[in-house]
């Protein structure tokens, strides 16, 4: 579907909408309530997590469960360097640390396919968590650290910048040669290799790029958490959440993961505050109903509407 000849008008519309939305968000702290700002920063976090997950996992089909490892690396960076270095540097280091971790992990996991790759990445999260725990207890004699507190507006803007960068990167990759290479790997890895695609390099670098944004997000969001320990930082929910949100949103389009993360995160916020005793029940029901009636996610729903409006795109010969 993605490879129909692209229309410049479509690009123009998308571009102008994106720009308007960005301006709207950039001026938001001026007129919205402070909690809106706090909540949006949290939703941005989920979008960045989901979108950067889909940068790598979307086209290649390698379901990574390493997000929590990258987020946790960023969180720990913030806890360790937060007091010594200026915030942008800390966020950068958080991103770079995750980037390096992903390079290493990526180089090791190349042989693994399917669920084996997924479980390897999951094992990575748990391994880092337990080693960190052991390390802290036996070598530093503590567990847990305080993170320097940063005000909401700063956190919001840093998250907004990260979000914009992630969307731009995801968009650029989708439209680039690199994106084509990634997709060819997902479609037929062996053929891609024999058609000249350096599959190792492409996979590892995509994995590392996506990890960068997650790590940077961890570094900035940790300042909202005040206190962290290995169990808090390397919480495997942050590995599952991006996958769920991306599937929920639909992975075929760029806006799928964005919508998935936004709706998912907002829905959760409503449920845990309005229906705290039945949050899981309602959430579960919504998940099952949506998976039954929206097998291609929210993006599939929207494409369905588009099809109904404009008629079927392809009439096959």
């Amino acid at each position, binding site marked *: 579907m993605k490879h129909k000849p692209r229309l410049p008008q479509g690009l123009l519309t998308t571009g102008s909408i994106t720009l308007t939305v960005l301006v709207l968000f950039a001026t938001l702290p001026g007129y919205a*309530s*402070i*909690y809106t700002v*706090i*909540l949006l920063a*949290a939703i941005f976090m989920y979008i960045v997590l989901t979108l950067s997950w889909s940068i790598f996992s979307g086209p290649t089909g390698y379901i990574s469960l390493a997000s929590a490892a990258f987020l946790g690396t960023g969180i720990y960076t913030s806890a360790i360097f937060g007091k010594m270095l200026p915030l942008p540097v800390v966020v950068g280091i958080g991103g770079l640390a995750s980037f390096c971790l992903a390079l290493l992990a990526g180089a090791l996991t190349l042989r693994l396919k399917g669920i084996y790759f997924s479980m390897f990445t999951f094992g990575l999260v748990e391994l880092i968590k*337990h080693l960190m*725990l*052991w390390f802290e*207890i*036996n070598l530093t*004699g*503590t*567990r*847990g650290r*305080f993170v320097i*507190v940063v005000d*909401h507006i700063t956190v919001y803007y840093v998250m907004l910048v990260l979000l914009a960068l992630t969307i731009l990167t995801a968009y650029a990759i989708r439209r680039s040669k690199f994106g084509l290479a990634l997709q060819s790997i997902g479609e037929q890895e062996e053929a891609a290799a024999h058609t000249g695609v350096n599959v190792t390099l492409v996979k590892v670098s995509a994995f590392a790029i996506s990890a960068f944004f997650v790590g940077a997000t961890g570094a900035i*969001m940790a300042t*909202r*958490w*005040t*206190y*962290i*320990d290995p*169990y*808090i930082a390397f*919480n495997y*929910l942050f590995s599952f959440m991006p996958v769920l949100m991306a599937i929920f949103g639909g992975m075929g389009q760029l806006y799928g993961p964005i919508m998935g993360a936004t709706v998912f995160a907002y829905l959760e916020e409503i449920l*845990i*505050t*309005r*229906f*705290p*005793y*039945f*949050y*899981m029940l309602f959430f579960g029901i919504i998940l099952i109903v949506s998976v039954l009636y929206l097998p291609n996610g929210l993006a599939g729903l929207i494409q369905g509407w588009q099809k109904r409006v404009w008629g079927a795109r392809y009439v096959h010969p």
Partner: protein
Amino acid sequence: MEDKKRLTRRDFLKVAAVGTAGLAGACSQIPVTGKDKEKIVVGMSRPLSGPLAVIGDSAFRPIYETWVPEVNAEGGIYVEEYGRKLPIELIVYDDKSDVGTMTRLTEKLIVEDKVDFLWPASGTSFVFAQAPIANKYGYVLITAEGGATSIKDMLPSLPFVFVTLSFSDWYQLPVLAELLGEKGAKTAYIVYIADLHGIEYSGVAGIEFPKQGIDIIGVKSVPPDIKDLSQIIKEAKASNADVFCCFAYPDQVMPATGTSMELGFNPKAWVGGPCVNFGFYHTTFGPAAEGVLGFTSFSPKQSAAAKTLADKLYTGKPEEAQDWWGHPLYWAGLEIWKQAIEKAGTLDQAKIRDIIATEKFQTVLGETWFDNGLLAKECHTGEIGQWQNGVYEVVGPKNMATADTVYPKPEWPTGGG
């Protein structure tokens, strides 16, 4: 408010009208704030789901769910500024046992819902994360589940935070060491959970035990999700220590007890907690709980007030609901809060804080006050408890004991439960 209170999970099934009742309950939660105060709105972020739900639900929740209706039945808390009694309304959010969500919801309660007061989240690390936020906004925070030696160092910089729970060197382990030392214990083997709680308890034990002539002959840390403890219990058994300490949570203390029984490891003193202090420990192990030591803070035998509280909380409820350590301390915390509001005559947090920090109050524990942000150890009505004839007795400190320590503990019963 009343609708919502009735809607606890278990009762909910009986109501059966799932959707509609849930909706009604939810809608009644939207707070109303206005010039004419009609109620005191109290907000909480609690772990209603996720791994911490186990702690939150059996520790602070039964306390506030008993205490709030009791106060509201009398019309609420008298606030001079408004010249009338204001009932308490609770807003409870589910933080899914996630710190990031908890800190966000705490800020939501403060900046968006503009609650009058903040009540605590659950768990020591959550207290660490929540305390600086409450303090930053100038909200009094009297904590419930959670306390640690390292929080003592923080409290001077957190004037709005008050810690009610007793903990390792405040003043449980010095008392435990003295009790065991007097009974002639010479050696101890310690297993602790690899978190703040475990590290602190084992660290404090390392200081206090030797003072009473008890050598620590083995120390092992275990990660929180370990399953099989048999290798460690075997090692403890082989060490022949007089005292076995398991400074961990129910998820480890329960299997540690079971494994000790299975492997026939019966030291002269078996100490475990938090876990032994809960009613479910006794319902699980029955007669095998006999002689096991844990932490505590009261016994209904101590005073009329203590008995009234125990009756209020536990009569007509399954034994699993009992918590002989935290419950009276949390209860006292709420009583202090109420009395401080009444004394201040206003809902102004700073004034209330000053009163809590400096004055003394009459609570279920007797005369009660905070000592640099910690509930004064002089107010504790017990530190160490022991199951004796199916009752959890206070055995230390001596001047508050309802029974003498049984040492050595009896053999585990054979032939299963």
